[in-house]
Each structure stands twice: as structure tokens, then as C-alpha cells.
């Protein structure tokens, strides 16, 4: 069934179709309509789930950790400072190997107080052991929730579905809402190997001596390493049922590209328009949108970028004192495999718009420079 919905509600419908059993949320700014619609679905029994209203995002994640340990499929959503407040418990969720799925609306961190998009909130959680999927349209947001549960529950790793504030969260697009019965065949009920139950008492997360802790972390990393292939596999399976492939990356016009733009989120969608415009002017440009940021899909990124003469990475984020975060990842992926110049651009912080012209400026810069002489090339900073 096709419906015109906003990105926030695409998350809600994804959670509904995944038949989540426990939702916990703190319903105030920076929360969005995601959990508002879910609470209505719970109240009207469209969705058979427990909605737990808590007093902070920290508690929201804590509640889901408890529910997930008891074997429930769990979901929440947050944004910016709310995600930051969850930080401690993000480690807890991944360390306890709980396949919680969470929507995060990318909003710039305060101060200055902002409700507009950039990626510093989610990228600040890069090392918490969560998978991170960055979406480019509302259809992908909905589909990603369903796919994320499938991958999360196979490896016992939590997942974040990430979408840009406003340009997805509050933007209405046509979304195909899949048939529930078909989703049920793709995503069967969550059957954890271990769970908290009075019938068979266990404890989770107790004191772990140096004799064992190291191996727990080794296992988490080993599981993470299997995820990129599993995303592609479950993405193909999704395509068979629903007609839409969900991979680790989304490449556009890469085969003969001299310059490849590396992008993420909605900027990765707008970049396609720039690629079309530039190709009409005879410039061989391609766009590689990274969908799965954690774990990073090193193999496919190396394979796809190798043929380019130059790479231009566009970051809507910054690691202060270093540079763009996707830029770090791309350089790290290519190190030892390729010596093509990789340029790093920062654009669109705090919701400054990223337009097709932004990418044309980036391509012009990249075309006119043979070597990288600056760690950060700022786009659109007012002088």
C-alpha cells in the first residue's frame, strides 16, 4: 500500500511491521513524532506492544535493555542531546549483545541550540558497538528498520537507523508500506538464545575478570565483521520479497567515473542530481553513498573506489582537531590498497543546506587540484 508519510512516521511504520513488543521513550524535545504515532498504535491496539513512558533518554534505553534481556523485540527513537544522554547505556546494550533497534534523527548538538541536521550526534556514538545505517529517503527508513532487526537478531548487535532532521524527518514522500504477512515471513519472531526468565534464572553483565572480558569484546568484533556480508545477503532477500535492495553502499555512475563523491544521508541523494548535471557537462563523476557506517564496509568501498582517479568525501560532521569522520574512514579503507588522492570536504553543519550546487563546487575544487594540500576543505563558510 502506497502512502505519503514523513520520515518520522516511516520509522513508526517500520517498527509496527517488525511487530516490536516493547517501546520506551521520553516524549519531549528532542523527541519527534516517531513515538507519538507508535503510542497511538499501541493505544488503538493496531500494535500489540508495551509503551513505557520514562523520565529521560537514559531511562528509555535502560528500560529496553531490561525488556530485551527478557526476550522482547524492542524499539525507541531519539535525537541529538537525547542520544548523548543515552551514551552509557549504548555501551551496555552492545556489551550485553542485545539486538535493540533505535531510530535517530540527525540533529546538530547544542549549543547553539539547534533542531537542524548534522551527523555529530550519531557519529559521536561511533565506538559504542552499535550498527549504524544512514538513510537517503523515507522508503529506505521504513525498510531499514525491518532489515536491521533481522541482522541485529542474527548477531546480537544493536542497530541505529539514522535520518536527517527535516529533510527526511518532517518531509513527506510516497512510501510503499509492505504487507504484514510478507514482513512476517522475512522477519520471524525474536527467539533469543538466552533470556532472563524466572524458570531458568541467570544473571547478565556481572563482574567480568580480565580472564574473560577480553574474549567478550573479541567476539563482539568478530560478529561485527560478519555484518557487511549479512547486510548484503538480507538486502537481496528483502529485494526478492519487496523489490528493493538494501546494501551496505549505494553506488551511482561509478563504472567510468574519474571522480567519485563519497556521501551519506540525504546529501547522498542530492549528490545524484549533481552527478547528472555534471555528466551533461561532460564530467565523469560518480557517487558512492555509504549506507552502513558501522561496521564499515571496507571491502566493497575499496573495490568501488579503486577505479577512480580522485575521491571527494563530503562530511556533514567534524571530529574537532582532526577532520571529517567519513573522510577518516575512507582514508583508512584505502591505506595500503590505493594511492589515489582523497579530498575531504565539510558542508552542511547545523542544517546549512546541501544542494546540487554544493557538489558542483566540490567537484570543481577536486578537478582543479592534483594533490591534497589541506586536511579540511570548508564549503559554504561565511567570511
Amino acid at each position: 500500500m502506497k502512502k505519503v508519510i514523513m520520515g518520522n512516521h516511516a520509522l513508526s511504520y517500520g517498527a509496527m511491521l517488525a511487530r516490536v513488543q516493547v517501546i520506551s521513550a521520553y516524549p519531549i524535545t528532542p523527541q519527534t513524532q516517531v513515538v507519538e504515532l507508535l503510542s497511538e498504535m499501541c493505544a488503538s491496539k493496531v500494535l500489540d506492544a508495551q509503551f513505557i513512558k520514562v523520565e529521560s533518554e537514559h531511562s528509555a534505553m535502560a528500560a529496553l535493555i531490561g525488556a530485551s534481556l527478557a526476550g522482547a523485540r524492542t524499539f525507541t527513537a531519539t535525537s541529538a542531546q537525547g542520544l548523548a544522554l543515552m551514551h552509557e547505556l549504548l555501551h551496555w546494550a552492545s556489551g550485553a549483545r542485545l539486538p535493540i533497534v533505535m531510530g535517530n534523527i540527525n540533529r546538530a548538538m547544542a549549543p547553539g541550540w539547534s533542531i537542524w541536521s548534522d551527523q555529530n550526534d550519531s557519529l559521536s556514538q561511533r565506538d559504542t558497538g552499535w550498527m549504524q545505517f544512514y538513510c537517503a529517503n523515507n522508503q529506505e527508513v521504513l525498510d531499514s528498520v525491518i532489515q536491521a532487526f533481522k541482522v541485529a537478531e542474527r548477531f546480537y548487535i544493536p542497530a541505529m537507523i539514522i535520518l536527517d532532521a527535516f529533510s527526511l524527518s518532517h518531509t513527506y514522500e510516497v512510501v510503499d508500506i509492505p504487507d504484514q504477512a510478507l514482513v512476517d515471513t522475512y522477519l520471524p519472531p525474536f527467539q533469543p538464545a538466552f533470556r532472563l526468565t524466572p524458570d531458568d534464572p541467570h544473571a547478565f553483565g556481572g563482574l567480568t575478570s580480565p580472564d574473560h572480558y577480553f574474549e567478550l569484546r573479541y567476539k563482539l568484533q568478530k560478529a561485527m565483521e560478519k555484518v557487511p556480508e549479512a547486510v548484503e545477503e538480507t538486502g537481496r532477500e528483502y529485494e526478492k520479497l519487496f523489490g528493493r535492495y538494501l546494501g551496505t553502499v549505494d553506488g551511482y555512475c561509478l563504472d567510468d567515473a574519474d571522480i567519485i563523491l563519497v556521501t551519506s544521508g540525504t546529501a547522498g541523494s542530492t549528490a545524484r542530481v549533481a552527478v547528472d548535471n555534471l555528466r551533461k557537462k561532460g564530467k565523469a563523476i560518480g557517487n558512492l553513498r555509504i549506507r552502513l557506517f558501522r561496521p564499515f564496509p571496507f571491502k566493497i568501498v575499496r573495490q568501488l573506489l579503486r577505479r577512480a582517479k580522485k575521491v571527494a568525501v563530503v562530511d556533514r560532521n567534524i571530529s574537532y582537531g582532526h577532520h571529517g569522520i567519513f573522510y577518516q574512514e575512507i582514508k583508512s579503507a584505502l591505506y595500503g590498497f590505493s594511492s589515489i588522492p582523497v579530498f575531504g570536504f565539510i558542508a552542511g553543519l547545523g542544517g546549512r543546506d546541501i544542494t546540487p550546487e554544493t557538489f558542483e563546487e566540490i567537484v570543481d575544487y577536486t578537478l582543479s587540484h592534483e594533490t591534497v594540500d589541506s586536511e579540511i576543505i570548508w564549503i559554504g563558510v561565511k567570511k
Partner: protein
Amino acid sequence: MIEIRFHGRGGQGTVVASKILADALAKEGNYVQAYPEFGVERRGAPVYAFIRIDNKPIYDKSRIYTPDHVVVVDPTLVEAIDVTVGLKPGGIIIINSDRRPEEFNFPDLYRVVTINATEIAVKHGLGTLAAPIVNTAIVGATIKILNLCRLESLIEAIKEGVPIKPQDNILAAKEAYEKAQSLL
């Protein structure tokens, strides 16, 4: 691709207007992207809503700066702000007003069409003269003036998407659509 900007005031349902239009267009297989001004809205303050329409997927997620047409939901905005900012030459300015198009002073490169959506809305019991709910009427006129979709698609969209007084809203949309037809 067609890009339209709506001008209204907070609380008048301007964003809802763009959503209803998106619903109607989607029913005819169009790709649509509708969004409010990115920010916070205040009751009574000027607000914006935008819509992109195409027959193929819309990849551009940047904002609309050079709309093809504008729809002015609140007539007092014409004096308060410049509703033609970025408007492409040849663009149509649809204004909810009881005045005639020639009474407005816009550059010749635009065409002005007026429709008294307030009168139509109030007649069908949608709000009051002081606070009319004109979104369904203005969308009814807009789809005809810009030849965007069939009236039946809009009626379907209102039935599904307008929880309060759907029948009155349908009648308002229909009357505005028919009045707009006589203007063309």
C-alpha cells in the same frame, strides 16, 4: 518537475494543505515531496510549505529556492512579505482574496489568479471569517489552476486525510475547483 511554495500563517493549516495536495497527486502515481519550513512555527507568523512533483523519483533533498508557482493562503501576506522571492518567470501566483487579480501590483512576468477561498470555507462551516480553515478550498482551486490532478483524487485524499468535517471540506474543495475553472 514542478515546485510550488505555499505562504500562510501559523495555525491556518498551510502545511496540511501541501500534505493533502501530495496525497492527491500520489494517488495518480506521481512522485511527491512535501515539507514545511525547516524550523519552528508560531501561530499567526508567516509560515511556508513546499512541494515537489515529478513523474520519476525525486532525488533532490535540498530546499526549494526557485518555485514554479506560489500559493498565498493568507491574503494579508501579500503586503507583509515578498511572495515572489525566487519565483520563476512565467510563474502563477494564486492568492486567496476577494480582490481582482489586476488590483495586485506584481511584475508582468507573473500571472495572478485570485480565488475567494475564505468565503467558500466559511460558507461550508470551516472556521469563521476571522479564522477560516481554507486549506481544502485553496488546494481545490490550485489543482485546477495549475492542472495538477483530477478533482476525484483530491476528494479521495480529503476523505482519507481530513478527520474533521470531511464532507464539508470536500464540498469546499469542489466549489473552489469549479470556481477556478470559470476563471481560466
